[in-house]
Structures are given as structure tokens and as C-alpha cells.
């Protein structure tokens, strides 16, 4: 009993009051207050310590931690979280830089500068396959305009964004909207793409609704099953993911959009639905789809007819490679064109058997995958067209390794460009390099050490070598 007590106290005496400093990546002289430092040992059920940085961005364990290997996770709201492996006792305090998320804010007003509350302000990102097409950014991408006319998007991971405003989510066919339209800043034909890096604050992205004549668009969905209604989207032809307005027909298939701004539109209808909500129709098992083009200008559009046709099927096959035995993955599909319907049902894809998704509208879909079990990765998102009777072949990719050389010892930070949700990984300074990140998802990454920054493509199943150089020597 006494002996064990002595051993414990010896171990503590050999431990170290571990300390460090957390600063902003874009301004390394500014400490981050109140960042949470979670320190854990591999396999332990509980954290060794959970600390917080003080007013100067510094932290220190209040009592020593025993020697050993630890993993540190740093979290701060509105910043990308970061992980860093460390061995205690450490030679020196550790310096960590966190990427601050960006913000985009502005106002939505009418031509007399009066606020227009209730509109959705949607963040859009250029599609990988075709940068001219903007698709809604994922999580938290819609903000609502408040009663003073202001909106604000925050938590924006570094990347490229456009901003659009629409009232389509009201689902009333434009009746309760000042205008049934969708507007990308500054214009639908020439969207401005904003680049967000650490700490980027973009203000004054204001939308002023034009004072213009508006029209009615009415018509009928043809071929509805008995007692069924359809969801209809009045979609912008140049930006197919955006709806100017959405509504539900009556059981005769009739619809009428009001307050429609002049322009080129696609009317898309989906039927046989279980319900209708803010995101459009929840479709039944055997849905029908239809699409027609209309141009609005000068007068009302009456008697538009949307004939319904059968759905399409998408097939997946998951193939093994020598490095990566096939493991089940989950696919998420989202339509490129707005069908006033929800399709985002996850699909389980199993190795060596064909998976099919039935009941899809004829058009383009973006498909993304979850990471399968094991060390391999699913491919990056791709776009398929169901009009081609497509089969999407998926081959898992083996992870890549990145080896970095830097002129003098310093921490190295790695963040994903394709996969912005992945936490930032940081390696502490070591006396003689190289620095190695292993088990990486193939794709594009940003590397940073002090003021040195570069982008690099990590190849699957291989070691990619790169060097970080001060800016002067690169030029």
C-alpha cells in the first residue's frame, strides 16, 4: 500500500506541467481566448485533462501529466478544430494556430431600402465537375433575413462561395413573396465568387430587389395518379439548383405562380408524394416526373402543361482493388436540378453486388460517399446523369502519405481543401525532418508552417513528397 503510493508520487514528480499557446492562423500574434484543449491517451476511456486557454491564448495543466504519448484536440467555436500528437515530457511549450472560419453578411431590401424579412439567403459553391454551376453548400447554408433586413452567414470553412436570395422555401408559389425569383449576387448571369480563408470577413453583400413588372405563371400537371397532387418548382434555367418558387398543385394538377419576375425558367413537377414540406415533396415509391421550358416577359403565362413520365434508376457497383478490398459504403445523392422534391435518402452499397436507386427524376445527380471501414477511402464526389441509364462504378482508393521538408524546425499544419469537414492536423516541431502525415484521403490539401503556405495533391497508395519554402526563395 505504502509502496504503491510512493510509486505514484514518483511518477507524478517525473511528469510535466504541459503548456502551450493557441493563436489565429491569419494573425499568429493574436492569442485565441477560451479555446478548449482536450488531452487524451490512446485507448483511454476518459480524457487526461480538459483545459482552456486564458486571455492571452496560453494554457497549462494545473498538475503534471505522467510521461507518455498523448493526442491533443483543440476546439474553438467559429474555428476549424485541430488535432496534434505529442509525447510528454515535451521539450518546449507547443504553439498551435487555428483557422478561423469566415463570414459573409449583408442586407436584403426593396428598391426603397425597406427591409424584406423572411427571405432565405443561400450559400452556393461552384460544382467540382462544372464551376459554372453553383450548388447549395452543405450544412448551415441557409440563413433567414431578420425583421431589420439583415442576414449573416458564419462558420464558413475556407473555400469559394457565392450568395443567393430566394423566397421559394415559403412554398406558396410566390403568393407571400415580394417577388418569386432567385437572385445570385450581384447578378444571375455573372455571379461573384468569394474566396474565404482564415478570418475572412465579407460585409455589405446587399441585395436590392428591382422594382419591375411581375407576372403570373399558371398551368397543369398532366397524368397525375387519381387523388394525387404534385410539387412544382419554377427553376432558374441558368442556375438549375435554384428555384424561384415552389408550390403544391391541387388534385386536378393545377398550379399558379404569382409575382414571377421576367426570365427563362424550367417548370419541373414531381408527383405521387407522401407529404409536402418546406424542402418540397416527400415522394412515394413510384414517383412520376415532368419538365417544360418557359420564358416569362411582357405577359402572363397561362396554360403551361407539364406531362409526367416514368422515373429513372441509378445503379452502383463497388469493386475491389488489390490494395483495397471492397467494404460497404453509404452514398448520398442530391439532384443538380431543382425538382421541388427531397431525394437525399442514404443508400447502402455492398461489395460485389449491384445496388440500385429507383424513383429518380431524369437528370443529373451529385453522388458523395462516406468513408468505408478500414484504411481505404471512397472516391471524391462525382456527377451522374440518369437519362443515360447510368451505372456508377466505385473503386476504393488506398490512403496516401505526405512527406514534407521545411528549412527549420516548426509546426506543420495540414487542412483538407476537398474535404473541409476533416479536422486540421498539426505536427509539432521535430529537430530533423521530414514531417509525415499518413493515412490521408487522396485529394487536395493545404500545408502551412509559419508564413509558408502551399497546396498539394495527395496520390492514392503512394508517398507524395513536397517542400515548404519561404516566399522569397520561391520567386
Amino acid at each position, binding site marked *: 500500500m505504502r509502496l504503491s503510493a510512493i510509486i505514484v508520487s514518483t511518477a507524478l514528480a517525473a511528469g510535466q506541467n504541459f503548456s502551450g499557446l493557441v493563436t489565429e492562423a491569419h494573425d499568429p500574434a493574436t492569442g485565441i*481566448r477560451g479555446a478548449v484543449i482536450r488531452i487524451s491517451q490512446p485507448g483511454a*476511456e*476518459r480524457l487526461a*485533462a*480538459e483545459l*482552456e486557454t486564458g486571455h492571452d491564448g496560453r494554457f497549462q495543466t494545473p498538475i503534471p501529466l505522467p510521461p507518455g504519448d498523448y493526442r491533443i484536440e483543440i476546439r474553438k*467555436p467559429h474555428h476549424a478544430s485541430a488535432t496534434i500528437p505529442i509525447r510528454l515530457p515535451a521539450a518546449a511549450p507547443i504553439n498551435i494556430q487555428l483557422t478561423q472560419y469566415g463570414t459573409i453578411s449583408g442586407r436584403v431590401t426593396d428598391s426603397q431600402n425597406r427591409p424584406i424579412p423572411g427571405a432565405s439567403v443561400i450559400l452556393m459553391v461552384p460544382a467540382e465537375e462544372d464551376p459554372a454551376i453553383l450548388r447549395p453548400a452543405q450544412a448551415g447554408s441557409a440563413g433567414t433575413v431578420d425583421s431589420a433586413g439583415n442576414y449573416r452567414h*458564419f462558420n464558413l470553412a475556407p473555400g469559394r462561395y457565392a450568395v443567393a436570395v430566394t423566397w421559394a422555401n415559403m412554398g406558396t408559389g410566390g403568393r*407571400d413573396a415580394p417577388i418569386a425569383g432567385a437572385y445570385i449576387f450581384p447578378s444571375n448571369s455573372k455571379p461573384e465568387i468569394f474566396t474565404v480563408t482564415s478570418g475572412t470577413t465579407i460585409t455589405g453583400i446587399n441585395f436590392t430587389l428591382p422594382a419591375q413588372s411581375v407576372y403570373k405563371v399558371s398551368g397543369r400537371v398532366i397524368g397525375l395518379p387519381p387523388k394525387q397532387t404534385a410539387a412544382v418548382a419554377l427553376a432558374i434555367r441558368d442556375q438549375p439548383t435554384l428555384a424561384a418558387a415552389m408550390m403544391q398543385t391541387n388534385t386536378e394538377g393545377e398550379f399558379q405562380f404569382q409575382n414571377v419576375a421576367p426570365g427563362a425558367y424550367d417548370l419541373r413537377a414531381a408527383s405521387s408524394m407522401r407529404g409536402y414540406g418546406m424542402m418540397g415533396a416527400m415522394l412515394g415509391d413510384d414517383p412520376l416526373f415532368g419538365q417544360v421550358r418557359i420564358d416569362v416577359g411582357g405577359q402572363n403565362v397561362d396554360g403551361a402543361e407539364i406531362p409526367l413520365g416514368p422515373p429513372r434508376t441509378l445503379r452502383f457497383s463497388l469493386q475491389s482493388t488489390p490494395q483495397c478490398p471492397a467494404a460497404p459504403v453509404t452514398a448520398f445523392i442530391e439532384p443538380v436540378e431543382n425538382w421541388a422534391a427531397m431525394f437525399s435518402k442514404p443508400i447502402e452499397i455492398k461489395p460485389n453486388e449491384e445496388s440500385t436507386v429507383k424513383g429518380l427524376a431524369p437528370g443529373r445527380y451529385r453522388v458523395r460517399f462516406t468513408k468505408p471501414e478500414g484504411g481505404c477511402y471512397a472516391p471524391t464526389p462525382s456527377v451522374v446523369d440518369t437519362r443515360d441509364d447510368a451505372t456508377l462504378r466505385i473503386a476504393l482508393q488506398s490512403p496516401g502519405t505526405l512527406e514534407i521538408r521545411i528549412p527549420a524546425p516548426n509546426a506543420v499544419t495540414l487542412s483538407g481543401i476537398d474535404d473541409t469537414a476533416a479536422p486540421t492536423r498539426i505536427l509539432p516541431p521535430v529537430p530533423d525532418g521530414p514531417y509525415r502525415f499518413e493515412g490521408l484521403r487522396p485529394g487536395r490539401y493545404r500545408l502551412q508552417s509559419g508564413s509558408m503556405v502551399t497546396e498539394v495533391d495527395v496520390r492514392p497508395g503512394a508517398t507524395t513528397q513536397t517542400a515548404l519554402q519561404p516566399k522569397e526563395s520561391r520567386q
Partner: protein
Amino acid sequence: MRLATLLLAIALQAQEKPGSLEGTLTAGGEPRAGVRVAVGRLETKSDVAGSYSLRDVPAGRQSVIIGEPFRSPVVRMSRVVTIPSGQTLKADFVLGLTASISGTVLDEFDEPATGMSVVLLGREYGGSGPVYFRRNVAHTDDQGRYRFDYVLPEIPYLILVMPIQAFRGAAKSDAPTDPRLRRHATVSTFYPNVADYNGAMPLILRPGESREAINIRMLRASSYCVEAQAGGSNVSVQIHGAHIPYGMGPNGGTTGLPRTVQPGPDGKVRLCDLTPGEYVLTAFEGDINQPLSLATIPVHLFDRDALNVMFQPLPRFRVPLELSWAGDPPATPVDAKLRISFSSMTRSFGSFANIANPITPPAQLEISDLFKDSYNIRFFGMSGRLYIKEVFYGNDNITYAPFRPGTKHDGATLRVVVGHDGAQIKARMRDRNGKPVPGATFVVMPALFASESELASALQTGLADQNGNYESTRALQPGKYYVLALTQPLPEPLPADQVIRLMNLRTHAREVTLEPGGTAELDLEPGSP
């Protein structure tokens, strides 16, 4: 007999031709466009001039609903009109404007606190005392800012800020074992910067007001854990503050979903990030609102973790129910079809035990699906002259108190005494010149009551039509009452502080003694007894 009733009804309808209702809506002196006006299933919207018009409105007393319940710049209101047979009634309505509250939440370094839930709490009477209801929730942005739009004016609100919490969590928190190696936890904080709701300052907004800079600085305190075992891995465990901050108010009502965890195979849970204070642990099998078994246990955290908390959920049980007439049964049979619901005051949604089939006194049956919990009893189907005279559990009169099954001897009966000689009130409000005061609000309160909450349960409010006429909507127990006529409408739902105000206005009210089975008719003037 039934055929005769039907013929009579048709004959009455034939005499009464539908009429029309039309008028103008204004707010702040301006016509108000696009506001919904509804009578039953008929509805319309006001045009750009604020005008509205409804045709084919059934003649007689009708409730008019003006406005939308949520997210509207105008306050939704109800009014009573009497539509003359085959004629058009002109009724202009003045709408109130909703308000907004905004501010910044700061952390202990006076930095913006991102990721906080800001909750607007209303205080109303429910069951046996004041209850706090979550009326709206906003989240702070990267600058710590929050904003509530479309807030109902003239209602006192408390503002509570707490970290956004996942209401499902890991069975065992990974917080460090040694409290010294934990960071401080954020205390749920009320405006203005207090942890206790007794110190919170209510905000009352004027119509159309934008109240800004309602800033709150979050409090922090040592962080503790509770380790508990409540049976097997099939028993979920929930934790909430014994007072407001995590879950229910002191008398029911909810400030959000409490944190719930499902234990692992060893049946143990570890809940952390708890600041010192009193908590309630709830263990249950199945869904919290329809559990198979349930138990609660209080936990006090002062300066250390609470370890080895052991408790076990108990199965549902039954309580006998006896329904009887007050005094002699009615001389002529009464078509009484009562339904009774028992809603939990500690669990947030639903949580009912019901008497599903309508019952007629005298009757004896059993209430099943009850737990050792606090329930609010509600009675439906009290038509004609019927009223609930008294409710007993064992020997205790719980007419205005919560029903706590299992707190009396085994086999204790819940006894409900139904009166059938209830009285009614017909009142008119006239100004000094004898002109009717349209849209007046009438308040009927008993002269005798034991507490503010008893008064809140017993009082009846209602609206007069355009001629100033009011009729009580449900039968009143015979006895002495005060009847008050107000020219201003009361906020809906009635905030708790208004009950005290109404009580203090008794000196301006008319005293009336209601005889068994009688109907009292009164003429009232504003502001005088």
C-alpha cells in the same frame, strides 16, 4: 325525439340567413395589408388598403381570428361579433405590433460567446403554480449576437442563455477523473447575469418596440459529474436542473429537452459538465412520454462528483377513480359525457394517462398507466350546467393542487365531485352615455380563493361582441363572484403577473351572487363597480 330536434335545428337555420363581415385593419395608424381574417373555416386576407370582406358567415355569435400565430409583425387576436341574419356587419380592427429583442452574449473574457441558446421564457399559471414556458429560441452567431423577431408585447419574459446541447449524449462522458483537470463549465445564465431565476429581471416590450443591447455575460463554475446506475442497459437516464436551467420549471413547463443517455452493457452512466446545484435524475424504459417504468431521484452537487447513485424505475400502476354528483342526482337525466386527461407536469411533451371513453356520473373505474409523478388533471365535455365541484385524493382536497399518485395509502381513490347546478352570467358593457363598448374583455373571478394559483385556475375571461354583450362560456359553481369589465384586451395566453393585477382590480369589479342553476344579468360601465 331525435328527428324532432333535427327538424327544429333546420327550422332555426332557415330563420337565420348568413351575413357578411367587412371592415378595415390598421396597425400604428396605417392600413395593414396581407393579414389573415378567419371565421371558422372561412378566411380571407386584407388588401393593400387594409380592407377585408367575408361573405356567407353564419348568423349569430362568432369568433373572429385576425393574424397569424407565428412569425408575424402583427399580434394575432381574437374578437367576438354577432352577425345579424342576412345583413352585413362592419367591423374595423386595430392590430397590435409585435416587438423585437436583440443583444450580445459574452464569455468571461468579454469575448463573443458563440454557440449559445438564448431562450425567451414566459411565466404562466398551469396546474398548481407558475410555470415557465419556452416561447422562442435563438442562437448566438460568431459575434455572440442574438435576435428575437415577432415577440408578443406586454408580456413579461425572462431571458435564459445556455450552451447549445445535444439532448442525446454518450453514456459515459470522457471528462477527466480529477476535477482539477477539468475546465470550468458554463452556468445557464439569466438576464441580467444571474444564475438563479429569482434574480432574473423580466422584460416587457411595448408594441412595435425594438429593444436592443440586452447583453448577457455568461457565468462559469466548477464542473462536476454524476455517475449513476438505474438498472440495465435498457433503462435510459435523463438529467435536468431541479429549477429552471436544464429542463422543467418548478411546477412543470419546460425550458427544453433534458439531456438523455442510454447506458452501455454495464448499465452505468456518467453525466458531466454540471455546475454546482440541485438536479433531478429520471430513469425510464421506452419512450419518456409513454414509459414502461419510471423513477426520479434528486441529486445535489456542491464541491465534488456524485458517485454510485443507484435507483430503479418502477412499473405503471392503477388508481381507483370515483365520479359522483354533488348532492342529489339531477331530477331530469343530464347528458354528461366527461373525459379526463392526466398530463405529467415533469415530462415535457404528451405524457398522458387518459380516461379514453366518455363517462357519466355516478361511475367507478380505474386509471391505469400512472407513475409516481406529478399530474395536472383536466376535464373535458363539461356542457350545460355542469362543473367540477371538488377533487379528492384519499382525504386531501386536490381541486387546485397537482395529483401525485402513490403518495397516499394503497387503494386510495381519486374522487371527482361533479356539480349540475352551475350558474351563468350575461353581462353588457355600456359607457356613461349608454353606448355599448364593443370588444370589451370580461373577467369573472371567485370572491373566495386560497392562493393566486387557485384564482388563476378558477377565473374565466371572455370577450364581448360589437354590442358589448358577453356570455360566460362554461358553468360556474354557485357562490359569490366579482365581474370586471376591461376596455383593453388581455394578452393571450395570460401571463402569471396579470393574475395579480386582476386580483388587485377587484375594487373596480361588480360583486354578484350566483344562485344554483341561475343566470345573472349585469350592466357594467368601464372603470366603475
